[in-house]
């Protein structure tokens, strides 16, 4: 059995205790709500996109340490990035979670702090916790598509 230290890395607990970019953005910011119907976790993503760039992102909702820290780290990773970069990052993260085959063109995408969530793969039940924010981000992105 994999140890809890693989799951609850210090950086994860730090983002859980002190989540970054919490809050809301007023319309016309894109807004999506994601639920995990099995456990009741909920994530809201607000996305301010202009000229193909993510100017700002905020998240709300509640859930476990994995879902909340993943959301917090995600906001830091996508803020200031182009939509193209964000989509590549989403793909890279989902492939790290072993739910997407990694496209070679995305192999160079840097995950940075997000790599701390690598250990989640060893706890398959928790993968859905880690990807909830990313699925919600993807939903918000569809609203910004030109």
């Amino acid at each position, binding site marked *: 059995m994999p140890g*809890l230290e693989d799951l*609850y890395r210090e950086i994860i*607990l730090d983002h859980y205790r002190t989540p970054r970019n919490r809050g809301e953005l007023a319309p016309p910011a894109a807004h999506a709500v994601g639920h995990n119907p099995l*456990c*009741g976790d909920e994530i809201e993503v607000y996305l301010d996109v202009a000229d193909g760039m993510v100017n700002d992102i905020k998240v709300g909702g*509640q859930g*476990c*340490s994995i879902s909340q820290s993943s959301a917090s780290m995600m906001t830091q990773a996508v803020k200031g990035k182009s939509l193209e970069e964000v989509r590549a990052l989403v793909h890279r993260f989902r492939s790290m979670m072993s739910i997407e085959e990694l496209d070679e063109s995305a192999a160079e995408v840097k995950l940075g702090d997000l790599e701390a969530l690598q250990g989640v793969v060893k706890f398959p039940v*928790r993968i859905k916790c880690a990807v909830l924010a990313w699925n919600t981000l993807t939903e918000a992105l569809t609203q910004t598509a030109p």
Partner: protein
Amino acid sequence: MVRFMETSYAPINRSAYRLAAEATDAFEGARSTVQRFINAPKAHEVIFTKNASEALNLVAHSWGRANLAHGDVVVLTHMEHHANIVPWHMLAAELGIELRWVPLTTDGQLDLTDLPALLDGAKAFSFTAMSNVLGTITPVRQLCRAAHDAGAVAIIDACQYVPHNITDVQAWDADFIAFSSHKLCGPSGIGVLWGREALLDAMPPFLGGGNMIADVRLDGFTTAELPAKFEAGTPPIIEAIGMGAAVDFLQCLGMHNVRQHEIDISAYALKSLTERFGDDITIHGPTNVEVRGATFSFAFRGIHPHDLSQVLDQRNVCVRAGHHCAKPLMRILGAPATARASFYLYNDEHEVDVLADALDSATDIFGF
């Protein structure tokens, strides 16, 4: 189940060969076992279903459509499992029936103050005998009487209750009860609907197909007698036999012993967990062990139930984390999710201590 699969596994109710006759006898024997277990007047009132959810859907769909019309009232409670909410929502969307709700007291029991008013004009009162979240045991006999006084049928979700208590449908004066096998040490894939013969006889069938017909012509069909009328297709034969064995096992232990064991372990758990953790633990539901079972939903030191269950799993302590298929109740509790520790006949007081130690280890990780 294994012996049956190795020696007698054959389709029931259709073939003349000896193996098939043995299978039919075993299947019907399981039905009689269940009948005695819940003190049902007649074996053919025991309908085998896929689970308790299907049993409740059967009542809502078959009895409901035949007996309810636009504006009719069905009363439920705030502590119902989704299985006793969603079928009625579906019926409300289809027929325009009105749903009314019995609220809760602060200690997680049904608040019966306005029950007569809620039941006034109601056609059905469908309620749980024991909450799968709070452990609360409801006053089933009193609720059945109140339903009947108002001219409503009494439908009981007994899924959580039956494995933990003596069940007597005649003493309750119930009209329908639903429960499942997997909660009473039996296999998954089978549940039971018990209903009064007169009510079942008057209801249209639920699912159509093999076994449930007396005759089929090009221009129509007639239904079989009970219980076949509500058991379309090949039933869960092996599972029924497994359920019968599980019931035999519980009968051997004696349900009064099972109940007493749970009262004892509940009293110990409530005392030891609150003494050890004080305000750091919030246990939902009644503190009086006479009106609760050994199912404890709790919040602990602000640690999310998912994280709690993950840490407890490392100590081989299994607790469910989530909304327990009772989201309306969770909203009333103000908790999107809880952890739930359930003690049964195979647990003892030492395991309460193991849980408590494991909870402390969660604080080591999430101590903030």
